[in-house]
């Protein structure tokens, strides 16, 4: 008989998520995800000035900070047909790349590594052996035995206080934990180091964006950073050089630590390359525009149906109708009234709570579809698209990560392993390398542009009488983000966000095809239903961000039939 478990709250994510699974024969057979918080930001936006919508939308999420701001200004600019000065594009691009790098590092080390790494086990490791192992894997300068010993002492001291704090609830000693104490110690060491490097790359965001989380340098029409190399109160040479030195430091961490750790852990959990494939229609959008209109890009994006890279269709610009016209949202299995498969511009959000019906309506998250099919979004989708487009930095980074993993695992691991729970982590590490290449290029472009005497950063928006509409697309750290805005007489009439977590956490669509979470959980082994670590592994690999996903929540409390009492 199927055993039903409830995990609420799902931790180490943004927002409030509740996951329910049916477990049959030690594997997940069915899954449901439910967001448990609604804030009504789209409602709040109605009637507001489109020039400040980004201030509001950015607060949708403090982890995917910046991304909703970027998508918002792009949506309004798209509606106006407004061009953006090159300096503004480069500054935005540097912020996007830096934020994504930060997000990937923190996701791996601080939000998901504890699913794979047993911190307590690290206290039993031989620090010298661990250091030797690390040095064989990487030229990283902070892998000395002394540093490993310090980390271990620190952990021991911490554990011996008996106050384990956030680590108290960990799955220490769980049967699914397979790393040796030495590898655990190496990962723990890097857990702490990653805290330093995320701080460094965040500084890039802070220098340009005023602060982070929630940057405050954007404007519909450009950025608020004035450029004048001969004035004190602007983006000075000192600020720019500071950015460059931070970029360089973090570059070493990505290539010498992050990518190697992911490859190593992936190789050691090679069985997990077989779990969590889920939906294999991949959608991503191009990013890092290289002109004022958003028609040429540094990284490509597009659609890959059924993991067939040869059928890749590239999305060519911010106005590409292939993207704008082919998205619909299914509400067959979501608690909404009205017509299903509507385009986001026409999106309705009239609630229709029916109670939980396994085969009927069961979620507050809509099911977006591309060309009528569910699609997986995120770094994996993006990496596969760039790979399919033959994007050289992607090919280089992917080859590197796969080669390292192959050599550790002792077998050849090809790109096909990417369609898995571990594959999503690997793709994130590959993308992080690509992003570092991007941020360097963007930095150089910005310097060159300023050097050419172009100091423009802003084109003032002018709102016409009547109704206009636009979409802002953005390849965010968690995947395709799109904001859809309808503006009437200079005021927001309707605002819809189709966000990465909606794509991935969505329920079954009109054709009863499951969403990516549900599909990926299918078949995931659960050794101990009381401690469903494996469920967390797969869910965490998507990097869920629930605050973004929930558009509306039930005014009446959701009551679930609980098979087990494990709440």
């Amino acid at each position: 008989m199927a055993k039903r478990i409830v995990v609420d709250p799902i931790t180490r994510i943004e927002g409030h998520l509740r996951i329910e699974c049916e477990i049959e024969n030690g594997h997940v057979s069915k899954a449901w995800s439910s967001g448990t918080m609604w804030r009504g930001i789209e409602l709040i936006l109605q009637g507001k000035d489109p020039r400040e919508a980004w201030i509001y939308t950015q607060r949708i999420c403090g982890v995917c900070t910046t991304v909703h701001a970027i998508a918002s200004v792009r949506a309004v600019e798209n509606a106006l047909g407004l061009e953006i000065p090159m300096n503004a594009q480069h500054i935005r691009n540097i912020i996007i790349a830096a934020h994504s790098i930060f997000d990937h590092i923190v996701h791996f080390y601080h939000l998901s590594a504890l699913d794979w790494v047993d911190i307590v086990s690290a206290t039993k490791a031989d620090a010298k052996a661990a250091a030797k192992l690390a040095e064989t894997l990487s030229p990283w300068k902070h892998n000395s035995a002394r540093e490993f010993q310090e980390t271990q002492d620190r952990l021991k001291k911490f554990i011996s206080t008996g106050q384990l704090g956030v680590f108290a609830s960990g799955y220490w000693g769980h049967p699914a934990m397979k790393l040796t104490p030495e590898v655990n110690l190496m990962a723990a060491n890097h857990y702490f180091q990653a805290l330093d490097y995320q701080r460094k790359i965040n500084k890039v965001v802070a220098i340009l964006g005023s602060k982070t989380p929630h940057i405050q340098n954007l404007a519909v029409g450009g950025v608020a950073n004035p450029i004048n190399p001969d004035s004190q109160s602007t983006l000075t040479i000192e600020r720019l050089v500071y950015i460059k030195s931070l970029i360089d430091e973090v570059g070493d961490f990505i290539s010498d630590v992050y990518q190697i750790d992911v490859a190593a852990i992936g190789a050691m959990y090679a069985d997990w390359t077989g779990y969590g494939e889920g939906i294999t229609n991949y959608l991503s959008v191009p990013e890092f525009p290289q002109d004022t209109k958003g028609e040429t890009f540094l990284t490509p994006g597009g659609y890959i149906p059924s993991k067939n890279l040869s059928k890749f269709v590239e999305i060519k610009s911010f106005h590409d109708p292939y993207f704008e016209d082919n998205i619909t949202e299914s509400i067959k299995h979501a608690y909404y009234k009205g017509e299903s498969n509507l385009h986001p511009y026409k999106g309705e959000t009239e609630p229709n709570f029916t109670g939980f019906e396994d085969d009927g309506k069961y979620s507050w998250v809509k099911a977006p579809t591309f060309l009528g099919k569910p699609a997986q979004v995120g770094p994996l989708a993006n990496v596969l698209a760039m790979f399919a487009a033959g994007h050289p930095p992607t090919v280089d980074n992917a080859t590197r990560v796969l080669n390292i993993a192959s050599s550790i695992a002792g077998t050849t691991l090809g790109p096909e392993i990417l369609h898995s729970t571990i594959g999503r982590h690997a793709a994130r590490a590959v993308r992080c390398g690509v992003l570092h290449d991007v941020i360097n290029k963007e930095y150089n472009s910005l310097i060159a542009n300023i050097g050419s005497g172009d100091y423009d950063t802003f084109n003032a928006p002018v709102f016409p009488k009547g109704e206009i509409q636009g979409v802002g697309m953005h390849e965010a750290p968690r995947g395709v983000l799109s904001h859809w805005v309808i503006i009437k007489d200079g005021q927001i009439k309707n605002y819809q966000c189709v966000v990465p977590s909606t794509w991935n956490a969505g329920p079954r669509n009109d054709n009863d095809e499951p969403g990516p979470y549900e599909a990926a959980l299918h078949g995931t082994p659960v050794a101990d239903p009381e401690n469903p670590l494996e469920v967390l592994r797969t869910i965490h690999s998507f990097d869920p961000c629930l605050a973004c996903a929930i558009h509306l929540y039930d005014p009446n409390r959701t009551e679930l039939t609980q098979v087990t009492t494990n709440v």
Partner: protein
Amino acid sequence: MRERDIITQRLGISRRDFMKFCSATAVAMGLDASFAPQIAQAITAARRPPVIWLHGQECTGCTETLLRPSHPTLDHLILDLISLDYHETLCAGGGHQAEQVMHQSIKENEGKFILVIEGAVPVKDGGVYCQVGGKPFVDTVREIGPKAAAVIAIGSCASWGGIQAAAPNPTGATGVPAILKEQTVVTIPGCPPNAQNFLSTVIYFLTFNKLPALDSKNRPLFAYGRLIHENCERRPHFDAGRFAGAFGDAGHRLGYCLFKLGCKGPVTHANCPIQLFCEVGSGAWPVGTGHPCFGCTEEGVGFNTPLFTQAKITIPTPAATPPPITTEQESQVTPLATTLTGAAVGVAVGAAMMAGKKATSEDEE
């Protein structure tokens, strides 16, 4: 004082029970039972103050800010300074496991732990708009709040509702002080607040064993005692009447005051201009980079007054440039006044002329 007495006094249990507890703890953590004496020693030694961190209607931005400071770093904070017993974004375990640890900590540390609340509390429709662990968040706050030694509302959402409380406030979002009316709830508004303001408050409490001095909205004076306008690096430009008129214009590139772009510095209490963000040095705050402040720390300003709407100067101070010797006052001539004057003179002259004419004609008759 003997160890036994300490144990009895602190924990209210016998030594034997206590050692049993330590062994169980060690096993629970996946350690040998041989860790028990060490744990026992640690527990009877100075304990790190427990902190329970709850999330309501929020975006996790406030938690994110803790990743930015280097004094203390997040790891130093949670490994050495406090015992962060529950925090959804950082908990190693999930669901049931995490909840259990939280409830245990609250039980053991009643009246001793610091409660940090991030996010607003929706109260409309019984608080269903935010539920954690199957329970409306407002109920959780009401239940745990009174058991804490100190309650800190981090961020504008927890302080007064923040963004979701913006009109039309669809979920009835409000701040923690409005829920825990019987207690002093320290508020650290900001969207997100500067992590240093939060950390300083916590460390103030740990160091001096009392809450910092607060203003009328329960904000620590050390961080919110002055208007942004009073410490702003662009203030001299304001005083001298030098303003940026648009992003990227000549004034903007010379670092002029952003008041005319809608900067809310004159009505917002915060230390942004002097504390700065993310430890990157000069100019690392919104006004420093060239964007107007939108008043995120001030209830009724942030998410309330439109971004480009100019703030009202409540306490004007002299401008840097005194007025000229003679200021030509504006002309007071209005069309209505001139019309009236003209009409009055016209009527008088006309009447006189008519009368004169009549007099003449009668005279000639």
